[in-house]
């Protein structure tokens, strides 16, 4: 069983957000980078599936410059078998998807996993785009995945609940909360072994640039919170009704 897990290299969830280059790009100075949380969970589940089956390989892939290698090594430390870095700046989701699809075309992965969305762009597009490029099915917002022969039993989130589905290999799944209970923490041994596992760097393929970020802006600073006395709770309801017109 061959699984490909797509990893993005993103600022930590509590990182300060600021921009440079006329607010076009994120300011990476002094920022801690991590594997995007949904992908970390997807990778954890992939490792569990491999262990349950007793065979298989887990490959992790990232599209980025050499600065993303520590994040790929972390994925190897978690237990992935090998890593691929496409040496290119991740311009947009289509660009990233096309690079990964190129690799996928010459490797017969049974399952390709991404996270539901990365926490920096919040786009949630790469997995589905890869699937369309290589013409395989995709299931989104996957909160559970089990393998049965050469198909998967998945649960995907829908409004008001879940839908249980069956999907034949190969397919792309984008994982969300629930796909694994918690991210796997690399053990010391895993961290040591990660250094020796293969990390292959490949060149990018030529892809049209369909979208680009023109500029980033920060939200308007919130006005001060209007405090209401606990003894006068009724006043809050009056304010919400008359002032905020929210109730």
């Amino acid at each position: 069983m061959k699984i490909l897990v797509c990893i993005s290299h993103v600022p930590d969830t509590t990182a300060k957000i600021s921009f440079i280059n006329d607010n076009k790009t994120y300011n990476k100075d002094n920022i801690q980078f991590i594997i995007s949380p949904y992908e970390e969970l997807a990778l954890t589940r992939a490792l569990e599936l491999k262990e349950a089956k007793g065979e298989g390989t887990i490959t992790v892939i990232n599209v980025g410059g050499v600065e993303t290698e520590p994040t790929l090594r972390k994925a190897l430390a978690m237990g992935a078998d090998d890593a691929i870095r496409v040496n290119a700046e991740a311009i947009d989701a289509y660009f990233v998807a096309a690079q990964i699809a190129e690799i996928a075309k010459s490797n017969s992965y049974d399952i390709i996993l991404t996270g539901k969305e990365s926490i920096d762009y919040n786009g949630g597009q790469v997995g589905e785009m890869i699937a369309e490029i290589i013409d395989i099915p995709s299931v989104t917002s996957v909160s559970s995945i089990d393998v049965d022969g050469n198909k998967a039993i998945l649960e995907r989130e829908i409004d008001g609940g879940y839908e249980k589905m069956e999907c034949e290999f190969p397919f792309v799944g984008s994982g969300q909360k629930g796909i694994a209970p918690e991210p796997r923490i690399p053990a010391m041994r895993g961290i040591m072994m990660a250094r020796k596992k293969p990390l292959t760097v490949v060149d990018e393929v030529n892809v049209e640039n369909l979208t680009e970020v023109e500029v980033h802006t920060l939200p308007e600073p919130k006005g001060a919170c209007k405090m209401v006395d606990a003894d006068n709770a009724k006043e809050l309801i009056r304010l919400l009704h008359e002032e905020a017109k929210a109730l």
Partner: protein
Amino acid sequence: MSILVYTENWDGKFKKQSYELLSYANEIAKMTNSELVAISIGKVSDEELKSLGNYGASKIYNINDDKFDTMSSQAYTKAISEVADKEGTKTIVFANTYTSRSVAPRVAVRLKAGLVPGCVALPASTSPFIVKKKAYSGKAFADVKVNADKTILTLNQNSYTINEDVKDAEIVAFTPNISDADFKVKTLEVMKASDRLDVGDAEILVAGGRGMKSAEKFKILDDMAEAIGPHCTVACSRPVSDLDWRPHYEHVGQTGKVVAPNLYFAFGISGAIQHLAGVNSSKVIVAINTDKDAPIFEAADYGIIGDAFEVAPKLIEAIKELN
């Protein structure tokens, strides 16, 4: 020239967000001197389809083959792309729903369109398209420019107001060119409580955090939601969901559901960044917490430093007087 809008249905019915989406797409149609054309997939009555005409749609493609009861993103993608090709559409608008998140990126690849997901406002320009979306889990905005010839936008819930624009919509039955090979996924079971208001659809949310102390103590928030009305439901923070005090579908936050209600009450929620990432699009946030230094007060519009169990009953009383 036409703008195509995919109007999803839930058990044959449209929701408030469907009409918000239509109003948004209709405005873009006006900006580009285009007609607004809708596409519906699934079993929807003619009467329900006609309601789309009240918000600007002049034509509605109706795809109601049984096969589409299974949400195969491959099949939906082909169907929508076929209609887009037929109409010669250069712009397609979706709502940022589970189905659209599955389908819009695939349609974008198929049509070589630039996709801007999770838009929060009308385009600043339409040639080229430049549209604002949230980024960094709501801590920033990104203005995205589409370089491609075609554009696909997905609109976040509660980001646009409903505007009536009554047209006599023509319903066109359509059979896309799809086969069994496009349905490599099969639905085994659907598990949902259909009579429950989803946190994503509620106009008002009453949320509780660890400060509520136990599952039983959440009852006061259930009472408050009931007092407010059928458009209000209870939500919770991650620790509450992890402790199984409340069902997982009530969890709002970065790894739970991202919501955008008109009003969000946060009882006993400290306001961790990951929680705020899921609720920072709420129009009004009210925090009730015993800790005056809780970060939630920095994100809130109104606040009470007090005990949830003392404050909530008083609020319920005042709400009942209001109604």
